[in-house]
């Protein structure tokens, strides 16, 4: 690996003819395959001699495994292998803490925990054989309530206390008072990422005890590290390639089929394909933490916040996953983008016997935003102030310090974003019934909110979210860029391990290469572990961090090319410019062609690139520069509520967001639209129903996500206030829309109904009940 050259030659200037540079919106390179059904998702992979793997999962919430008899399963015709914990050579896995066995060992801690694996030549035979595995369980007392988990006599999930993390933030006066005090309790249900492409992959054994795994995931190298741990193999024996990913949203950050498929492949010597069905997918990945929130704000009669106290309790479920980081985000960011001089926050993450929870878009901020935004509305109402004005009054600005004492050292346009959404035109008043033809517009369009008792409400919310990994994490990405002449045309190949999950990072990588090297033809190399880690496709970080690495690698390539040209031409490199296929002197004269300089050689540079460091927060006060960058967004929701039936129709969901620099403006809008839909879904309908630790609705019939009929048209305003610390000034885009959309919808429903509505999703009965 090389480091970034200190003296960076200028980027090409005369590239007007190039199409698809940064700031353009070129079409995604995988689009043609995807619309024809020819793009290979993890579930589409196929290999000669391939057989199928399935998982047997725990039907119990907490139980001791007394015995497992695999005999009848193994004796089934067509079955190649049946594996249990005894067959796992290595140790536990886990994203942050290695606390999760690959297969349950002695005890199951949640409903759906993997217990055994079967490989067979037909998926149905494998499923039938799995049912023949005789597992004798002895049920144990379970803890399925987050608050109960912290009581001293609560059943222990891991025997080491159920507290996973407690983050304290103490700032200013420890006994603050204020003329006006508002408080509330808020509950957020368990949301699912509900990506459309189920967990899937193909593990292919080699002849030397190693394995190639093709898998749909978010972070190849974190997977590789854990697989090596579990298999007891060195990294060179465990090679990963990204299969097509059917959406992720945080749900693919933890392992799913990875180790299981590898174990079966190594045991049988055959390629193993594993594909979850939808039901198993609901058990096979972590969910958004349900949260229990207790908030109190104190303010002056002028509306200025004096203090805030907050207690956030995140139910992490049976294994740690990324709960500690979610607790960190919830705590450090959980009071919203407001200036608050005196702060007491306690953010807890606990183990329970509920399904494990971890990363989902918005990561800890989503839950908190429902509480702080409901409280800001309450404060505004008590003061008879406008709900927008009170947020603008207290909103952060550049140069302010947040509740951990960190300086906000780039744009923080809270007031402006709110103003922008407030000033957008409002949708037309409700159509009268006569304007609908019930038969020609069946279903939702006409069949819901057109009766009497329909009232309109408007709600606002604003948020800020950290971008990239925080609290001192060594957050970097690696990019390899190669420039050569192929078929008489300069060609760039860009190679990173960054997971393309649909967001369009591969397009962004192409755009950066075109911009930096002036070359039209940019080939995106398949993502694999043959190049260094890119970090996870999460935390809205890839355009920033992997984008930064690709930019740096391009700069290194440019420097190398000019060095070669300099030697060849005997002109100082600083007096040369790489301009696509030509080398130009600073006077503008073409002095050589790239072909002359490269011949048949390629210039190939790999760069590991980090953003500026972050730091752990102080354990007692929570003070510190925890985050590298903040991204801001605001939403305005307009809803029609049928108060008699409890039905809600979101008629408009408008937003403004600062993205620093829109590398691909169309893709930015796509992120905002999709992210907003997910936030709206949590406010209105999305919840995994868990009673006594058991999941009751693992299907798309019973776990509802918004359809095209639920999603209103959106007005979107994108601001571009460059962050001087980030490549091109970019700011992460993906998460803020998921955070501020839901609270805006909830606020609009509260405004329409006058009800407190302290839980999401808001169900019809919450609106109609007394």
């Amino acid at each position, binding site marked *: 690996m090389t480091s970034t050259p200190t003296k960076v030659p200028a980027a090409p200037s005369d590239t007007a003819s190039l199409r698809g540079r940064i700031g353009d919106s070129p079409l995604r390179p995988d689009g043609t395959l995807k619309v024809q059904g020819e793009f290979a998702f993890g579930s589409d992979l196929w290999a000669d001699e391939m057989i199928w793997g399935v998982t047997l999962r725990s039907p119990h919430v907490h139980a001791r495994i007394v015995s497992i008899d695999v005999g009848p399963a193994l004796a089934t015709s067509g079955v190649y292998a049946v594996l249990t914990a005894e067959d796992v050579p290595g140790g536990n896995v886990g994203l942050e803490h290695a606390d999760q066995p690959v297969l349950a060992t002695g005890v199951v801690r949640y409903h759906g925990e993997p217990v055994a694996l079967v490989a067979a030549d037909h998926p149905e035979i494998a499923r*039938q054989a799995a049912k023949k595995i005789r597992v004798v369980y002895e049920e144990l007392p379970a803890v399925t309530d987050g608050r109960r988990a912290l009581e001293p006599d609560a059943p222990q999930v891991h025997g080491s206390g159920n507290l996973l993390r407690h983050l304290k933030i103490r700032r200013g006066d420890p006994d603050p008072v204020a003329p006006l005090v508002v408080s509330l309790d808020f509950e957020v249900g368990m949301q699912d990422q509900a990506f459309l492409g189920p967990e899937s992959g193909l593990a292919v054994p080699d002849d030397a005890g190693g394995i190639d795994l093709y898998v749909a995931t978010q972070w190849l190298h974190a997977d590789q590290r854990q697989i090596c741990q579990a298999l007891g193999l060195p990294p060179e024996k465990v090679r990963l390639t990204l299969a097509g990913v059917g959406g992720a949203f945080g749900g693919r950050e933890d392992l799913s089929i990875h180790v299981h498929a590898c174990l079966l492949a190594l045991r049988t010597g055959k390629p193993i394909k594993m594909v979850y069905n939808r039901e198993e997918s609901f058990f096979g990945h972590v969910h958004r933490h349900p949260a229990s929130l207790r908030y109190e704000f104190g303010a002056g009669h002028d509306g200025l916040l004096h203090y805030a106290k907050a207690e956030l309790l995140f139910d992490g479920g049976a294994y740690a996953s990324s709960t500690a980081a979610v607790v960190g985000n919830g705590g450090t960011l959980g009071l919203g983008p407001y200036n608050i001089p005196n702060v007491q926050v306690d953010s807890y993450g606990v183990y329970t016997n509920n399904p494990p929870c971890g990363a989902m878009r918005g990561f800890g901020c989503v839950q908190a935003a429902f509480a702080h935004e409901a409280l800001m509305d309450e404060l505004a109402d008590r003061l008879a102030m406008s709900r927008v004005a009170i947020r603008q009054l207290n909103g952060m600005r550049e140069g302010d310090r947040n509740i951990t004492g960190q300086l906000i050292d780039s744009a923080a346009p809270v007031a402006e974003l709110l103003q922008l959404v407030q000033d957008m035109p409002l949708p037309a008043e409700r159509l009268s019934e006569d304007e609908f033809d019930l038969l020609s517009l*069946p279903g939702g369009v006409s069949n819901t909110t057109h009766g009497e008792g329909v009232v309109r409400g408007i709600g606002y919310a604003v948020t800020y979210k950290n971008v990239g990994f925080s609290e001192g994490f060594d957050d970097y990405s690696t990019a390899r860029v190669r420039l050569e002449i192929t078929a008489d045309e300069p060609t760039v190949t860009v190679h990173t391990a960054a997971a393309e999950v649909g967001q369009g990072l591969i397009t962004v990588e192409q755009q950066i290469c075109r911009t930096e090297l002036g070359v039209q033809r940019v080939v995106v190399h398949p993502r694999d572990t043959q190049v260094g880690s890119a970090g996870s496709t999460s935390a809205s970080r890839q355009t920033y961090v992997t984008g930064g690495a690709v930019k740096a690698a391009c700069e290194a390539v440019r420097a190398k090319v000019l060095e070669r040209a300099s030697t060849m031409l005997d002109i100082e490199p600083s007096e040369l410019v790489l301009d696509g296929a030509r080398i130009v002197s600073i006077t503008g004269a073409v002095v050589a062609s790239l072909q002359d300089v490269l011949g048949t050689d390629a210039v190939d540079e790999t760069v590991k690139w980090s953003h500026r460091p972050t730091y752990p927060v102080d354990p007692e006060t929570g003070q510190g520069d925890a985050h590298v960058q903040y991204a801001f967004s605001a939403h305005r929701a307009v809803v029609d509520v049928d108060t*008699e039936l409890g039905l809600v129709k979101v008629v408009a969901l408008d937003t403004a967001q600062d993205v620093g620099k829109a590398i691909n403006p169309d893709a930015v809008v796509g992120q905002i639209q999709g992210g907003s839909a997910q936030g709206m879904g949590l406010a209105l309908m999305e919840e995994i*129903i868990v*009673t006594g630790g058991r999941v009751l609705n693992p299907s798309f019939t019973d776990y*509802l996500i918004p*359809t095209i009929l*639920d999603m209103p048209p959106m007005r979107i305003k994108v601001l571009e206030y460059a962050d001087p610390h980030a490549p091109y000034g970019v700011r992460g885009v993906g998460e803020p829309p998921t955070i501020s959309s839901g609270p805006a919808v909830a606020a609009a429903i509260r405004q329409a109904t006058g009800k407190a509505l302290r839980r999401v999703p808001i169900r*019809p009965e919450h609106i109609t009940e007394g």
Partner: protein
Amino acid sequence: MREFGYQQVSDVETAVATLATSADARYLGGGTNLVDLMKLGVETPELLIDVTTLPLTDISETADGGVLIGAAVRNSDLAANPVIRQRYPAVAQAVLAGASGQLRNLATTGGNLMQRTRCSYFTDVTKPCNKRAPGSGCPARDGEHHNLAILGASEHCIATSPSDLAVALVALDAVVHVREGDSARAVPLTEFRRLPGDRPDLETTVEPGALITGVSLPGLPIAAASRYRKVRERASYAFAIGSIAAAVEVSGGLVTDCRIAWGAVAAVPWRATRAEAMLRGKPVAIESFAAAADAELTAAEPLEGNAYKVALIRNVTVELLAELTGASR
């Protein structure tokens, strides 16, 4: 899924006879419910007899001015049929309020009447359920029953029927035509499905192995102004949490005749006969509608998690009756 056989048949007699040869066979219509339940392991037939190829795909007008809908008529064809749309609009509306276009293109009329409950304990074979495994118990009563029955339930089962179509049909006096062995029989839809009682596993009143051949609707002038209204938790592609089909005839400011049925409140499409009786002869007024709904709902036995449905059904009933009669609120 267990292994099973698949057979196509070309006439009703063969279908019924073939079913009788197997201890555990099922008729396969559109498959939108049965195939799903087989994937979940809830249904484990050893033989599927495909009845979509039977000559039961017509919608024909009958001598009494009504229609006969073949059991194999696809939902999308039913909803698009001009006679149905004109004379029985609630039927078309109910069909279109259900599922999605792709599913309506598969689902059949007969299959729709046989749709099984979406109770989450019924669809999960790892949990007890008296309907699926008689005698195993009903965890729904103390568990998740947010969308389960408020009417006609028993201590053994509080499941609901999820069909939209059946609600409209039962409101409009539909009759189910079945073939039982060698004989044909007509059963009013109000009597076709059973309330759970102590045998929630028995869902219909017809003989095991009976085949639905069609559904007839009588000539019914009141039906021409019928409507279906569905309440659900998202705008489309979701089961009802409450629904209503209704038709009202008004003369001189009085309700002279009416039909009211509710969905998602019971194991059967619930014909609200008490409400109808209460409403006949009453003035067209919100109070009359509310009193009618209340009369029916006195029998409601809601649980903690589904008590909201009582008010919801009452409100949607008042709302739709007001809409149908133009009563001012």
